[in-house]
């Protein structure tokens, strides 16, 4: 940080080395500024991968595409193993792994492993005219305590969580207040439309199956089979949509691999089991087989488990506005609003389903309101920035989301309109989920005035 002059040579050399498209930079130079003219201080942070001791990219990966090299500690990523789920891009608080749409897989800095093996320095080190970047061997034991002093810098997320192994030389007289050059430039993130559809529809389906099961327990059987079959159809639609999110849909099955470690694997596993159970349950109801109560219970539990796993995917510290109980509540409540409304659309007039939906919509209203207040009142930059996005750039959509929730989830159901209620409430939850994705402000290192991270 004391030597870098912000010339961006490392970035250009990195792209040339790896033949990456110009808008994808595995190495990035951030800018921070503090002090008052003429005692202004500007610093540049040239960063690739920090090759963390506890890499969150690796821990979250559902297909085990990441390895931490035993000898060098380099965190490597296999493009062959990767299915392009992009979960690592959410987990890393430095924005290091980047999804390459041209390839359908993620890529990241590997410290020029191949050059190191030839006894050459990495391309960035080689290109730096100021010798600002150096490669050194990390003494792991000592670094586990040293990193607090040596691995942290203004303009960088705190190194605690994953134990970044980049040693940053700080200047002697740092101003007390330092700002990232891109501090005022917060843009909506990627909307991940297949995931918007997938999450909301799986939640609808699970909600519907739980409703079917409860209604069956209450002894109301009329047209439940049709409702369940339709909900099963929705579940399949949702799971099909989810594969469109992947860069390599054909390898979707690989996502089951790391169920012991990755919430994404668990989600895939639980929803697959849910779909299986749901097909049997719906079939049993359709043909009027006995013993459906237990089957319905299992289906419901697997579904709720799936939704829970879904929510836990988003509870990542690198994406602060997702990382709260509001996410789990939002996902479960979406199911609780849409499931009963969905079933009500197929079955004869039933006040109970509509009442349940209305209550859930009320809870969702409280949940969303509480989340927005939490964001607004937070001192954390990323949370505050999320609230600014919702109240500035996304203001109209945010208001519409509440209007749809109240109208579709509460007003219309209380008046007995199931189908219009379902349609509006579904639109409300889809819009809400869209806002969930686009309003998150990820943790990241400082960028330059113009070049933020490409969403």
């Amino acid at each position, binding site marked *: 940080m004391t030597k870098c002059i912000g010339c961006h040579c490392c970035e250009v050399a990195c792209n040339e080395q790896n033949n990456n498209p110009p808008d994808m930079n595995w190495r990035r130079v951030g800018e921070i500024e503090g002090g008052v003219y003429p005692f202004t201080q*500007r610093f540049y942070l040239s960063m690739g991968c920090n090759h963390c001791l506890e890499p969150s990219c690796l821990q979250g990966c559902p297909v085990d595409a990441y390895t931490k090299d035993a000898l060098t500690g380099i965190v490597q990523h296999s493009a062959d193993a990767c299915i392009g789920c992009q979960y690592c891009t959410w987990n890393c608080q430095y924005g290091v792994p980047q999804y390459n749409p041209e390839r359908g897989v993620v890529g990241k800095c590997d410290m020029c492993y191949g050059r190191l093996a030839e006894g050459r320095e990495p391309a960035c080190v080689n290109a730096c005219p100021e010798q600002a970047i150096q490669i050194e061997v990390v003494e792991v034991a000592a670094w586990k305590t040293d990193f607090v002093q040596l691995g942290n810098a203004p303009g960088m997320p705190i190194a605690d969580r994953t134990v970044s192994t980049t040693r940053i030389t700080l200047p002697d007289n740092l101003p007390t207040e330092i700002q990232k050059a891109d501090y005022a430039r917060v843009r909506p993130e990627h909307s991940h439309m297949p995931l918007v559809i997938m999450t909301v529809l799986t939640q609808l389906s699970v909600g519907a199956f739980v409703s079917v099961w409860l209604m069956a327990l209450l002894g109301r059987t009329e047209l439940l089979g049709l409702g369940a079959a339709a909900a099963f159809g929705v579940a399949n639609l949702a799971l099909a949509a989810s594969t469109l999110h992947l860069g390599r849909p054909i390898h979707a099955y690989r996502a089951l691999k790391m169920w012991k470690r990755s919430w994404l694997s668990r989600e895939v596993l639980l929803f697959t089991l849910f779909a299986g159970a749901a097909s049997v349950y719906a079939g049993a109801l359709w043909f009027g087989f006995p013993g459906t109560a237990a089957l319905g219970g299992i289906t419901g539990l697997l579904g709720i488990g799936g939704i829970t796993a879904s929510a836990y995917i988003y509870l990542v510290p690198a994406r602060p506005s997702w990382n709260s109980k509001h996410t789990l509540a939002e996902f479960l409540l979406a199911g609780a609003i849409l499931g009963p409304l969905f079933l009500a659309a197929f079955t004869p007039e039933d006040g109970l389903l509509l009442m349940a939906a209305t209550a859930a919509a009320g809870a969702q209203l409280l949940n969303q309101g509480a989340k927005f207040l939490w964001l607004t009142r937070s001192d954390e930059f990323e949370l505050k920035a999320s609230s600014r996005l919702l109240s500035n750039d996304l203001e109209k959509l945010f208001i519409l989301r509440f209007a749809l929730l109240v109208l579709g989830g509460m007003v219309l159901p209380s008046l007995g309109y199931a189908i219009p209620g379902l349609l509006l409430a579904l639109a409300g939850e889809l819009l809400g989920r869209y806002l969930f994705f686009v309003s998150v402000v990820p943790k990241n290192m400082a960028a330059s005035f*113009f070049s933020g991270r490409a969403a």
Partner: protein
Amino acid sequence: MNIKRILGIDTLQEKYAYSTDPRFGYTSSEKIPDSWVPTTCGYCSVGCGMLIGVKDGKAITVRGDVDHPVNQGKLCPKGLSEHYMIEADTRARYPMLRENGKLGRVSWDTALSTMLEKFGAVQAKFGKDALGIIGTGQLVTEEFYTLGKLAQIGFGTKNYCGNTTLCMASAVAGYKRTFGGDGPPGAYEDLEKADVVLLIGANIADNHPILCQRLEKNTHKTLIVADPRVTKTAMMADVFLPVKPRSDIALLNGMMHILIRAGLIDHDYIARHTTGFADLKASLDKYTPEHVSTLTGLSQELIYKTALLYGRAKAAFIGWTMGVNHSTQGAETVNAINNLALITGNIGREGASPFSITGQCNAMGTRETGCTSGLPGYRKFESPEDRQQIANFWNVDVSRIPTSRGLAYPDIIEGAVGRKIRALWIIATNPVVSYPNFAVLKQAFENLEFLVVQDGFAPTPTTEYAHLVLPAAIWGEKEGTYTNSERRVSKVNKAVEPPGEAKSDFDIFLAIAEKLGCKDHLYPGWSGPRYAFDEWRRVSKGRPCDYSGMTYELIEEHGGLQWPFPEGAVPSVTRMYEDGKFQTADGRANLIPIEWEPFPDQPVKDFPFVFNTGRTVEHWHTRTKTGKVPILEGMSPRAWLEMNPRDAKKLELKPHDKVDIVSKRSRVSGVELRITEIVAPGQVFMPFHFAETNSNLITQSAFDPISREPNYKQCAVRVEKTGAGHMGAAQ
């Protein structure tokens, strides 16, 4: 997108594969060339050695030349991505003639016939000098030498100047006034050897980053940076001098005032090698620390500290660039710098030099071989002896050599406004973006009967005004030499063929000479740049810029040779004036009293800000090149205006707001606001690279009376939120 890619079976494995290049090691397989062609970077004048990787006739990558003495393997981000500009979709490919208002493709024969017919008609009717030629600092030296002859003898016009007047003219004029001739006295090695390095108006971290590497090698130096803006370079400084805009003369005079009184001057050197000390000393009396503190805004303590650091240094270096040159007192500021160096004996020694860091890759080449402000070999138009020598070399009667220089660039433009210049030939420059106060230039262009633009790129904002566009080869497509800031002549080589029917400027000049009927006389038997180089070696013999001992092969072998390099010379670091003998008649350097003056267009109530312009590391000049390099364009996609938070608060502006900048002349709209403590309250800064938001809509027509360089750096403006002003106008 194919189905395999959509399913995820295809992940472009081949594109993203790696293998090992025998020379540069493990890298992307697609970046491994069939051959590496050594050359010199074509952007700025640092003169970095590099290699172009060529595969299947295309330039696919570049690398810094590890063995090159200038850059030792490093390149700036522009150099590292230089091969992309060759492939730009806006390369000029065919001659284009304007008919019925539209440019359409024509043959070279038609293009050149039309050009000569139009130029001939204008010259026949309005005199030879009604033709103006505006060149550049971008061609190879061989082309400059060839063009100089073509302009002066072939076309017989003396109104030939270059865009170098927009950057280095003040340094040239300043050197000539002090030392009796041009040429930066020092060498880059001085950056490594000096005890004190004083940079004035030079943001090398953005503009010459590879020089920072040389500076970084010097661990014992004290770096002093004087700049009104806290630049990246200011952040490197041990002592930062946040001077008020255009107060550098006051600072330099104040330093000399202190040093003379402290006895920290070299009386012996002054006595033996200079004239005018008494007058200089008298002129400095009033530059007391109190007075200088008021003029510069620096504390007296800081002025003392700076003076004493410089005065006590064993070897002190002063580097400057556009902060000094882009001024109505540019040449005089250079004289003040030279005064300081001379009275302390900081010249002609290791580490000790006043040193202009040049802008364009070969601005030096045009200064050496020129025919613009002087005759080839730093000869003077005014000297009968020099004229006779050139007439002899060229085998023409001495009466055909002008006895004074022709119009300088701004005067050619003013000449077109006044209809003294009727036809204009612009070569490798883009004045619509780079010339100050665009309204005047537009008037000039509209008055012209015929405008020829010869460039590697089309369309450019300037070709929009052209009657004829001639497509030229660029860097990587032609052979010759560049001279860098430290007088190092480096080889430039052809790696690939130019696109379409584009030709090297050298070939274009010879084709024109052929049509003019003067080829056999002026360029007998010439078939390539080597012929021009050989003649130029003879012409330069015995001159300060002596090339006579150089050959292309020797240049390549040593990664460039610094002049003077007479026959039999041994390659080494050279400095000018090591013997204290200058190019003046009596061999003594002139100490010239210089007075500080306030800059024109001072801020007033309606235009309260001082507007400063400059560069950013990602872009080159008017972005015809770097704007086509996606990675650079991505890092710096548009212009911005820097404003201090205190001013932004008063104007109720927020970061990233779009603002208009308004001067007495015009308005530039929709510039993104950057609120930052980099600039002082009362000042704003904007990069000048962007045609889309052109800073030269608002800069002024104020020129240095000596060098004719424009005053780009200071003018009075106000800043308004975009839209607000227009609403006001509508009411």
